[in-house]
């Protein structure tokens, strides 16, 4: 087990280094950041001076080594537009994205697991059919369009919910105040919808697979109550593949947070990224991608380890 953990950890580091190389080199071919920071009427000397100051006149491999050296010291450069360290800009916005993603995660699990179990337990009932049709519909919805519909109905027409911003925050969290919570609802629901629909289908499919197995028939014959059968015998085994996909879905939620944050002007990391792409603010893009890569690789690592803990049959070597 320990050997596996060490191996897996080394692999994780290798992946992160590869990602940093790809991100750094691909981004360095995009536009000329010097033009972003010098005034429009700058002379050739001023442009050269600015280029030298940023270290952009050095060969690319040297730039990469400097970048990695700074990165390992916790310095990811300064934003061209905000003139602030990107680490600061991103950490200021982490909480906003985190609470939105967390609420979306909770919402989708709270709906998807019961709905999926029900649809598997009573596959021919009217409600199950509606759930399956609804979930297929749910995965077909463009999330930005859902956000727009929600804004139009709840903010523009009915004036019930605010359409943008985070509202009142306490210690950087919106969900602690009534006003903040009102701001949080629509972005989280928009974000959760796709994942919710997908997980419902997945839970149902896995449950149906498990319910067909002999040990379930045996448990039923033994006299286990129907709810005990579903929730303690079947669900546990059905959830194993669900957890893997769920881990990937958390990554997806972070990616789609960029969309939701853009629609609802939610000041999180994702909106920062989209704004940075539109203004070619390269250090922010690179830093965001590196941080998110660490999160994804970390999630995968945790899932692999969780696998062995949940299911002792899985041998990782």
């Amino acid at each position, binding site marked *: 087990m320990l050997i596996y953990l060490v191996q897996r950890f080394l692999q994780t580091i290798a992946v992160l280094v590869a990602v940093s190389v790809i991100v750094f080199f691909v981004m360095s071919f995009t536009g000329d950041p010097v033009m972003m920071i010098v005034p429009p009427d700058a002379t050739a000397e001023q442009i050269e001076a600015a280029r030298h100051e940023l270290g952009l006149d050095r060969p690319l491999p040297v730039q990469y080594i400097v970048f990695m050296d700074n990165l390992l010291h916790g310095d990811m450069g300064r934003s061209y537009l905000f003139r602030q360290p990107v680490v600061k800009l991103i950490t200021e916005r982490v909480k906003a994205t985190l609470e939105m993603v967390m609420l979306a995660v909770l919402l989708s699990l709270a709906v998807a697991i019961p709905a999926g179990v029900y649809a598997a337990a009573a596959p021919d009932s009217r409600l199950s059919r509606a759930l399956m049709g609804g979930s297929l519909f749910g995965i*077909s*919805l463009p999330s930005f369009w859902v956000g727009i519909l929600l804004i139009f109905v709840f903010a523009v027409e009915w004036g019930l919910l605010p359409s943008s911003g985070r509202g009142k925050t306490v210690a950087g969290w919106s969900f602690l105040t009534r006003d903040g919570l009102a701001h949080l609802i629509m972005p989280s629901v928009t974000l959760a919808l796709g994942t919710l629909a997908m997980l419902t289908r997945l839970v149902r499919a896995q449950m149906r697979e498990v319910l067909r197995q002999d040990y379930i028939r045996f448990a039923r014959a033994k006299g286990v109550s129907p709810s005990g059968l579903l929730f303690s015998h079947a669900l546990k085994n059905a959830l194993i593949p669900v957890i893997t996909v769920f881990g990937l879905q958390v990554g997806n939620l972070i990616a789609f947070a960029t969309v939701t944050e853009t629609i609802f002007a939610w000041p999180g990391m994702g909106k920062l990224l989209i704004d940075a792409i539109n203004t070619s603010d390269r250090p922010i893009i690179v830093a965001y991608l590196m941080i998110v890569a660490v999160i994804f690789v970390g999630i995968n690592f945790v899932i692999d380890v969780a696998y062995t803990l949940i299911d002792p049959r899985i041998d990782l070597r």
Partner: protein
Amino acid sequence: MSEFLFRFSRDKGAVFGFAVIALFALLAPIGPYFVSQNPYDLGSLDLANAYKPPAWLADGDAAFPLGTDEQGRDMLSGIVYGTRISLFIGLCVTLFSCALGTIVGLWAGCAGGRVDSVLMRIVDVQLSFPAMLVALFIMSAFGRGLWKLIAALTLVGWVMYARTVRGAVLAEKGREYVEAARLIGLPPILLALRHILPNVATPLIVIATVQVGNVILTEATLSYLGVGVPVTEPSLGLLVKNGYDVLFSGIWWVSVLPGSFIMLLVFGINLLGDFLRDELNPRLK
């Protein structure tokens, strides 16, 4: 085959999905001959017609069944042209990524050994990152453009096919008919193309169907974020983005209507894909 058609005709969802797809497939080539204007021809636009609501509303104008946008552009015309672009991207990307993924999958599965493990490592790593984010990264480096978008989405999409084909090749490789073909001295390339490929076609069809819908959704999302198609070639997603600004003044049709066409198209594709998956999966029979 007739059994397949029978079950198809009994599945309302699949029939509906097929009808939607057929409608869009017709709309794309012949739609421009039926709509009132070419939305790219600025000369045909009249600012006096700006922000007309859809025809069924009080101030609607029968000449503009789905209303008009801020330049007086007929929304129906814009949507028909936008559908063409969205469908074109969806089909191109699916075709290219399926071809690329199949080649890599066949290569990895047939070659085995180190080639296989290197290729599959790449696939694993890429699959651990959300497709949307990888596409966003590539597009932020490439800049906007129709073919750039197609290239980016192909680079994102091929991994699914590669993994599936490779798995199917490994399963087929040990079969007797493959062994027999190898023993009579067939070169490996012919073996892969003529004997293994036809047997992995079924999962490919299912994935490709669903992928067309996914690609259209991802394309719409990227275009909505402003890193997809250029403004001169607006897909449905870009139309939604353009309408977003006036949403707050109650002008909903400019953004909501193009989005509902994306939804309808993707829903149709998913309904058909769902049916095909159940139908072509021998385990469920």
